């Protein structure tokens, strides 16, 4: 009986056995390649997840995602040539038959257009910044500009998804989910990955929950979307008429009931649930203190601007991001909508800039004066750049720019990147990259590296193969590492 039972259990045939053995050996071998300490440290439990692979430069990330793709040519990539050539046709030798979006592919002419806004050099580093970012200009010496980003997608949805998940189509875990999976949470009373949304005054494109999805990873790694209403974390508030003491009592009774149940069924999930209720209770204690911005001193509020007290604004999100990060949240992801200037660049761009400029600079200064900028990586940028030629009706005074994936600018600050430098360069038309290109996969590899993770080792097996954030590509960009 028992033999039959076991045979049945494993359903072993000889062929199957051989297949399994070889597969088993193969996978052990492969596995040991990927887990460097498998054999070297056998007396300790194997712990590859939850800790960096090597000494991290950054412990936390605040990603200020500028959704819709802000124009690099009106912000940080200064191209005086375009002002000289405004109105002239984009030379074919520059364009080189590049793919255009459906919006401008029908356009007969591609007149170049220079920035309507003036540029000046700032700081010791002498970085060029447009006049519509006066506050960011003050912190350029903390910033590392990457002017040679390039991506593959040409439309928002795939480009955003690519930037956030490393793949153009959805269903892969986002960057924050990977961080949560690889590094866990520093503060066990808060989610490791928080998402904050805001909308500016320009043309917007919407964001999607798939951008902060856990994909095939466990759903604890899902980004927790904060609401833009005053109650920022969903379902966090105790019901009307119930206070913390009442809740405590309820949870104590509940724990007893669950425990009786556990004694009967012996399912470890029951104990886990009890623990989860405890963590929920702790979150309820920890989060309101964090999301209450009214206790911030006056000078901080001035620094971020008065909007930082209005929930759901970019400024409020920046301030909250600082607080969350300070409290050990691994990855705080902001999305600020409204950067899609296909037209009315001169009208919308200053408003968009005004919404983000002060608070962004404030965030950097705020982190710095607390001694946190060293260990917090701040990233600012969109999903692609914008064309150097005008979309729609040409006018030097009011023009639009279409999507441009070939060269765009993002910047980083703090957390192990070299401050006060510019990495990479686009040509004088701001169209192609002429030095040190950085692909989105390279960008991901570098960010993981800064967090102490090897992008090739942080993998998850799903549907029969190992996935990683950088998929099968990605090279570290050493030039920006401090």
């Amino acid at each position, binding site marked *: 009986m028992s033999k039959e039972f076991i045979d049945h259990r494993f359903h072993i045939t000889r062929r199957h056995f051989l297949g399994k053995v070889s597969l088993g050996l193969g996978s052990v071998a492969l596995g040991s390649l990927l887990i460097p300490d498998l054999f070297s440290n056998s007396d300790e439990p194997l712990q590859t997840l939850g800790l960096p692979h090597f000494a991290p430069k950054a412990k936390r990330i605040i990603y200020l995602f500028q959704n819709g793709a802000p124009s690099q040519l009106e912000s940080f990539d200064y191209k005086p040539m375009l002002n000289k050539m405004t109105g002239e046709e984009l030379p074919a030798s520059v364009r080189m038959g590049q793919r255009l979006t459906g919006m401008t592919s029908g356009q007969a002419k591609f007149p170049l257009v220079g920035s309507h806004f003036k540029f000046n050099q700032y700081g010791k580093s002498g970085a060029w910044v447009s006049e519509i970012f006066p506050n960011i200009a003050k912190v350029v010496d903390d910033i590392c500009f990457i002017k040679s980003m390039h991506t593959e997608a040409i439309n928002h949805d795939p480009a955003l998804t690519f930037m956030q998940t490393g793949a153009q189509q959805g269903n892969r875990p986002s960057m924050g989910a990977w961080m949560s999976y690889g590094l866990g949470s520093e503060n066990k009373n808060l989610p490791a990955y928080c998402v904050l949304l805001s909308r500016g005054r320009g043309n917007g494109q919407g964001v999607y929950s798939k951008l902060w999805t856990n994909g095939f990873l466990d759903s604890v790694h899902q980004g927790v979307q904060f609401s*833009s*209403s005053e109650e920022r974390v969903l379902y966090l508030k105790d019901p009307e008429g119930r206070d913390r003491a009442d809740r405590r009592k309820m949870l104590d009774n509940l724990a007893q*009931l669950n425990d009786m149940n556990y004694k*009967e069924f012996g399912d470890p999930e029951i104990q886990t649930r009890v623990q989860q209720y405890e963590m929920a209770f702790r979150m309820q204690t920890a989060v309101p203190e964090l999301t209450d911005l009214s206790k911030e001193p006056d000078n901080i509020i001035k620094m971020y601007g008065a909007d930082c007290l209005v929930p759901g604004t970019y400024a409020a999100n920046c301030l909250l991001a600082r607080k969350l990060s300070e409290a050990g949240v691994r990855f705080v992801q902001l999305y600020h909508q409204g950067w899609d200037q296909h037209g009315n660049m001169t009208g919308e761009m200053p408003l968009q800039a005004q919404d983000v400029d002060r608070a962004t600079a404030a965030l950097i200064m705020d982190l710095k004066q607390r001694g946190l900028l060293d260990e917090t990586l701040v990233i600012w940028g969109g999903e692609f750049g914008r064309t150097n030629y005008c979309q729609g009706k040409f006018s030097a005074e009011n023009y639009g720019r279409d999507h441009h994936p070939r060269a765009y600018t993002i910047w980083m600050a703090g957390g192990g990147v070299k401050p006060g430098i510019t990495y990479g360069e686009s040509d004088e038309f701001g169209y192609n990259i002429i030095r040190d290109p950085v692909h989105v996969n390279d960008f991901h590899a570098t960010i993981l590296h800064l967090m102490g993770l090897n992008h090739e080792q942080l993998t998850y097996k799903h549907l029969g193969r190992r996935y990683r954030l950088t998929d099968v590509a990605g090279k570290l960009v050493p030039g920006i590492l401090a």
Partner: protein
Amino acid sequence: MATGFNRNHKITQEGGIIDEEYRVEYVSDRTNTFGKAFLALTFECAHCHDHKYDPISQKDYYRTFAFFNRVPEKGLVGDISLASLADPPRIKITSQEINDILTFINKKDTTPVEVMVMKDSTWKRPTYVLTRGVYDAHGEVVDIGLPSEILLFDSTVYGNNRLGLAKWLFDKNNPLTARVFVNRMWQEFFGRGLVKTSGDFGMQGEMPSHPQLLDWLAVDFREHGWDIKRLIKQIVTSSTYKQSSVASEQKRATDPDNILLARGPRTRLTAEGVRDLALASSGLLVTEVGGPSVKVYQPKGIWESSTSGRGVLARYVQDHGENLYRRGLYSFIKRTVPPPGMLVFDGSNRDQCEVNRMRTNTPLQALVLLNEPLMLEASRVFAERLMVEQSTPEEKVRKAFQSILCRQPKKEELALLLTYYEEEKVGFNQSPVKAKKYIEAGEYQHEKINDVISLAALMQVVQTIYNMDEAITKT
């Protein structure tokens, strides 16, 4: 009309996209869904190259693709301001047709409703093998076909169209269809399929734990006219399913995952199931079948902050009345912002075909069960109903326990809950304002109950029962 299933994939409304790129994306989605849902194969691997493990060549992929590639559709019909709810090809369903033929449809609109359908165009769009899966990298032209390792597709036998595909799928000699389906049903009830990887019957999938059982169920299912109801009956009336899920120390040690099925399953309810449980046990449930989706309670600001602010779905306009109490199945799902409470319970975001949801256990789930308006409302309404009855507190607690957990409380459980009830009464007596606020939960009409203190205390007890692990776990 059922072919609408194949059209309800993600559809882009982003202006400026390249039409063909997305049209190919749609067809791929159909192909992948077909592969996963009916054949439990990781078909999508062969989108870019021959499958590395299973006998599906890239050519096979595009042959299958060809079945779905004849729809006269566009990648982009209109951007968000012009978007319609049903892109062509579509059919219009009038009330007349509902009354005459489609009597099973619950159509509430008085105007005709448009539904997307599959339709093969009269001209045959050539299907190319796409090199590396890139939409415009055309390789050789292929005709319809299916992986011959499964079952040879002979178009003279089955027919040269999607009907042929269906016939092939349900051919007596097709080894997969029935097995895949019964396995998925099994998974629904036991939390784990006989083949654990219910979405992958290929080389990388797991071997079945009970192969003969799987085969028997599959054949039985097929020979009884693919009768799903009967299959479910077979499963739930089996002695295996009816076993107790109590796990002895020894059973847990030898078989922690219950692969051998020596005990009954113990699995957490699905996202929809959690909602249904609260509704059904409290008596709130509206049992109406069909009809349009409903917009249930949702936290403020979650929907608005992620839309572009344009289009008919720019704002969340919550429903009221009966619509609030329909089954979870009917909750409105916007792919870009799925209901947050559901995602917390591993609900799907409907991006791609999923055959197996995760069952995680997280603190956010605790928060939903503790504070979500519907959970509070269910506790309140249930407590009110119990208060109206002429019965002792013990009987009330017993009834609540029975309705939510489907069993009578044990002595110590009952004692604990009754003590708690009395304690809460004392607590609320000290601050009746709290009681008054607590019982305001939800929009459902209130019963006239004078003893607010007892009601609030009872509501607290009911809420506690709802939060027991056992409540949301099928035991």
